[in-house]
Structures are given as C-alpha cells and as structure tokens.
C-alpha cells in the first residue's frame, strides 16, 4: 500500500493541518508517512500546498511530481496540479470558486461542496475536515478511529473538546461527496 497525495488551496483554508491530521492518522495506523509543505513567501496570503505520502514500506523521496490523489481547493491549484494526477488516480475538488472545472477523462473526478456545507453547519473552520471525510470515503486508506487517535495526539488537551465536532464533519463529508 502506498498513497501519494497533494493537497492544495489558499493559505488559511487549513490545507497544511488537513495534511497533518491525515499523516498522523497514518502513524496511528502503523504506516510510514511524510508531510512536506511548500514553505516560504508564497504561503503568506497566496497558495499553500502540502505533499502527504502514506506507505506500508520506507518512503524514499518526500518530494514528488506525480500524485495518486490531488485534493484541490481553489482554481489556481487546479490549474497547477490537474495535470500531475497519475492516470487512473483521483482528483477531488470543492466547486466553490472554480470557474474551469477539471476536464481530464483518464482520472476519477469527485466533488465535495465543503465550503457550502461548512456554512450550513455554521462553522467555516470545519471545512477541511469535511474535505478529509470526502477523501476517506473515496479512498479509505485510514480508518476513522485512527483519525480520531491522530487528532488526540496532534491537538493540545484544551482542544480535545473539539474532536467530536471534527468527527461529525468528517462523517458529513463522507455523506456528501459526489462522483
């Protein structure tokens, strides 16, 4: 088992923390993981992206240019990474703000209206967990109980009361993903 993922969107959307929670879930499930962010000036107010690899075996390069899955959260990122999904791979996107939807026929394209759903649920901050839920529905590479364990390890004690809300958002994402 090996899954190479890019998550890309605006800085402030929770791109890096979604990747971190996914990576931590992998650790809890006994997998090898790497989490490699873009860092530097482009993060400040511009686009942010992170590469996450989960694997049964030792991981070689944390820096890769083709992905099994691209999780895309804005148009700039779609323009940049649509072509980088491996044939037969997955492109998951939030249609909010997308003016030119993905056109590739040789990958599986899924949609999750996470921005809209987070607004309905009255909490913009759980947006990234809805997206994570959608991804895990399409590719169940880590179990939900390990995601919760990962949240427990990565969040400080004082934030543990927020875990049930995050879990709910993940479950909601699993329900509303399309395609």
């Amino acid at each position: 088992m090996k899954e190479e993922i890019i998550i890309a969107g605006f800085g402030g959307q929770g791109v890096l923390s979604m990747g971190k929670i996914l990576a931590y879930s992998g650790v809890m499930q006994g997998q090898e993981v790497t989490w490699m962010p873009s860092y530097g000036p482009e993060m400040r107010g511009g686009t942010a992206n992170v590469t996450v690899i989960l694997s049964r075996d030792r991981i070689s390069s944390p820096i890769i240019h083709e992905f099994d899955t691209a999780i895309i959260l804005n148009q700039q990122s779609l323009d940049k990474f649509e072509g980088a999904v491996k044939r037969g791979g997955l492109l998951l996107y939030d249609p909010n703000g997308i003016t030119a939807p993905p056109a590739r026929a040789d990958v599986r394209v899924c949609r999750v209206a996470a921005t809209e759903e987070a607004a309905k649920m009255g909490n913009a901050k759980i947006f990234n967990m809805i997206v994570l839920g959608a991804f895990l529905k399409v590719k169940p590479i880590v179990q939900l109980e390990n995601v919760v364990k990962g949240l427990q390890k990565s969040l400080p004690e004082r934030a543990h009361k927020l875990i049930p809300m995050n879990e709910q958002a993940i479950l909601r994402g699993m329900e509303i993903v399309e395609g």
Partner: protein
Amino acid sequence: MPDLRLMKGNEAIAAAAIRCGCDAYFGYPITPQSEVMETLMDMRPWETTGMVVLQAESEIASINMVYGAASAGKRAMTSSSSPGVSLMAEGLSYLAGAELPCLVVNVSRGGPGLGTIQPSQADYFMATKGGGHGDFHLIVLAPASVQEMYDFVPLAFDLAFTYRNPAMILADGVIGQMMEKVELRPPRPRPTDEEMQKSVGSWAVTGKRNRRRNIITSVELDPAVHEKFNQKLQAKYAEIQEKEARYEELLCSDAQYLIVAYGISARIGQKAVELLRSEGVKAGLFRPITLYPFPAKSLAARARQLKGILCVELSAGQMVEDVRLSVESALPVAHFGRNGGIIHSPNEVAEAMKKLKTNCE
C-alpha cells in the same frame, strides 16, 4: 509500545535535546530552522530537566555562550542556518582549538550571501573542510529523515564528548521542515554534578576542589609546544577517521552504477534508483551518514564492482571532490546538482544517470 509522534525535523531536534539530557541551548532565529528554538521555548524544559534555553542577541553571541557552557563541561548546543553558521566560524575554530565538545545544527539554505530560505546543500565545504581558520575538523553528521534528526542529537553529543571536539548536524531545509513518524527514545537524564565531575573533571572548569587547576584556552605562543598540540589534534582526527565513518547502502550488492548522496538528495536518489531499477539499470545508493569522517574506504571498496558513480547534491559540486578522492580516478565520477533552492526531481536524477551510463559504455 513505542511512543510514536509526527514531527518536523526541527521539532525532533528540540525534543531530542531535552530527552537526551542536553544542559543548554543558545540560539538566534533564522529560516528554515526557527522551529528548533520555538519548540524548546514551547516545551519549557527549564521547568522539567533544568535545561537552559536562551535567545541570544546574535549568532556570534550564541556560539560564544556555547563555548562558555562547554568549558564548564556542560552539554551545550546551538542551531542556525547557513548565513548564521558563517557568523559562528570564529567560535567554531576556538571550540576546536580549546578541544571543547558541543553540538551545532545547520539546517542549510541557499547561498552565497543572504541567498534564499529554500533548501540547499552548498555548506558541505564549510562543514567538512573547516568553517573557520586553522587545521581542524568538525565531526559532521548528515540526517536523511526526521528520525535521524532525533537520533543524531544524542549521537553527536556522545561523539563530541568522546573526542572533545565540536560536532555538527548538517541538515537542509527539507529535512528541517518536513514531518515524519518519529519514535521517541527513552529519556536520558542530565548528568548530575558528581557524574559530570567524574566524566569531564580531568579537563573542564567544574570547580577546582582537590585537583590541579584546569585551563580552557586555544592560545599557545611557543611554536614548539603549538606544533605538538596540532599533531595531537591530527592524531585525534586520524582516530576519528578510522573508527567513526558511517554510511548506508541500498541495493548495492549487484549494482553497476552508484548514486552517492546525503540528506534530502539521498531520499531523492533512492527514488531515482527505484526508477532506474524498473528500467533494468543496475543502480544502487551509497549514503554517507558522516560527512566528516567521509566513509572513503567503504566507498572505494564498493567502487571495485562499479562502472560509474553519480554524485547528487543540492550544490554546484562539493562532496563530489571527496568521492573522487576516495575512488582515485579508478572510474568515471559525474556530478548532478541544482542550486539556489531548486530541488532536483527523481526523474532528472535518473536521466543524469542514464547519460552517465551511455558515456561509460
């Protein structure tokens, strides 16, 4: 059940320092390693182990605070990135001249000058060939994973104290910034005063009590005495070269073409080896773990079965000089590197190896 965490390389350095009984950290912030001190400040070890964490007014102050603490026999460290380490050059030379053990972490970035905050491996010469005036060497460890960032902190301190010599962890922006799984090792307490007296009392300024006075200095104005001191240093480096060279080999047993790379380049090189093997090229990876001492003998032994070597670095070609010296022109050695914060892709490394292979046939 091992205590597993997901950590950035920089965070692993900080966690390891606290857990391996480090006495003091002095530093000054610079990207891409600022999380080392941020994590230490966040973990507040002065309340638990008694470790001192201090933000100095500059890198020059940091390295001289390290000199002071090391003189007193303490396990002291600092961390910085390339331009900051340049500022420490004088202090490093004095530490080596006074035979003081310490740890300096360089999470390197692109130069020369202020350069870029993106990753680079262009500090190999500075780390292995001196990084200050005079005939001296640092013991240089090159981690290629976040687990090694953690594990090399206690290793560097052990080597530094064994040989009374400053040690350096030479990482890069990728290893510092990326997160991986880390197993936290069982904690080692800070040495007590009695333990310290026993281990370093013969040279450190730990309070005179009932022994002769210890003096820490690097000055010696009598040429005859100073030559003897230099010879003693060189004998120490010869012993380090003999005993402490470390490396890792992957898929080397039947290899005809070898990638030699350290740090992040070794990880990319490993992926390039996978790509080359899938195309039928018998490629392997040789990863120096100690850059000083360079594992020259082991590389020369492996080279006997090879047709060509590709040295892959994020520089214009620095370690490649040590690779060539190791194999003494017995076979073609090429270099492939990117500069200025650009990171090579596994594909372009594989392409460079195929080009070398064509030239060798």
